[in-house]
């Protein structure tokens, strides 16, 4: 494909190249995001990247997040790799993702050690069951919120139901389910966009 026009290229606006950000800054910036993120780090990532350190504009953030959510994988880890590689190539990507996971990994492994030692105590089992129940409720609420935000529900809610039945009730392997249903859902979306005459 020939070079496309650069007018809606993220990061192209204004023509000024991003100010240099070092690997150390990338590591520290994403460390702060990882450590402070309870129950999902995305809001903290946005605040650090857009508001505090201004490594990305709001539009660049949305565009990069779109790419990271478009691709599979852990979204925020993908985002850190995208930002890190933009400033310092491979070394930047490694610095950013290590920063994001390093601190929380140490904390969670410490908790794991405690669990191995004290996990059999009935109090600890009760505590973890309580936390798991809240986690289950958070997942359910998140799913409801995501479902309410879906576009063209009459077309796409059947896919939500199909995934739930296949994965939760029938316990079919997810890779097969996802590939098959994604092909179908994207086909429906394509036809829908075409009918609407979107560009």
């Amino acid at each position: 494909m020939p070079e496309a026009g650069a007018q809606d290229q993220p990061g192209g606006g204004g023509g000024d190249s991003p100010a240099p950000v070092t690997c150390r800054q990338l590591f520290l910036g994403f460390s702060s995001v990882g450590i402070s993120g309870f129950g999902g780090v995305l809001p903290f990532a946005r605040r650090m990247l857009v508001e505090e350190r201004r490594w990305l504009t709001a539009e660049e953030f949305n565009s990069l997040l779109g790419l990271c959510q478009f691709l599979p994988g852990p979204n925020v880890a993908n985002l850190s790799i995208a930002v890190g590689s933009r400033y310092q190539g491979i070394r930047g990507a490694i610095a950013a993702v290590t920063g994001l996971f390093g601190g929380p990994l140490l904390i969670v492994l410490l908790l794991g050690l405690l669990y191995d030692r004290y996990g059999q105590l009935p109090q600890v089992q009760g505590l973890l069951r309580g936390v798991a129940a809240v986690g289950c409720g958070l997942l359910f609420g998140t799913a409801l919120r995501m479902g309410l935000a879906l576009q063209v529900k009459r077309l796409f809610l059947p896919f939500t139901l199909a995934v739930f039945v296949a994965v939760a009730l029938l316990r079919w392997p997810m890779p097969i389910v996802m590939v098959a249903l994604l092909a179908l859902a994207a086909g429906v979306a394509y036809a829908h966009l075409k009918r609407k005459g979107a560009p």
Partner: protein
Amino acid sequence: MSLLADLFFQFALLFCVAFGGASALLPEMHRVVVLEKHWLDDATFTHLYAIAQAAPGPNGLVVSLIGWEVAGVPGALAASLGMVLPTGIMIYLLMQHWHRFAGARWQQSVQLGVAPLAVGLVFAAAFLIGQAAGFGWGGVLLAGLTAAALLKTKWHPLWLIGLGGVAGLLGWV
């Protein structure tokens, strides 16, 4: 060594279809780790999920914990690398070319089509965590109240997690 390689490849494969992030992947993690490989039982899986939920950091950390429980620190590293590497490399390579297909109709179609699937996966995750934990009425009630609080209030989830821990300590769940 083969256990570490297995951990790496299982999670690498899993995260190649992880649309909707790590939470959406819980059902498949449960299927592979508990039902297929018998690395953990239902109770341990639920407990590790609870620990990751209560700790700071990205949702994907439950993967590191599972790896650790199965094969110690090397297991945690193998599982974490499996989670990050394949899609990380994809992102790294795609960064240079994203602007060429961002906004193209097929790209919009995939983005529109993947959203309802992700919703179904997160519903499935909630259902399977509840099933694996075998909650009684107290647990179901607590989960329902949490979902309502998430939707209707602006309380920080950390408070809810704290309340859940206390309720669990008191033996209500």
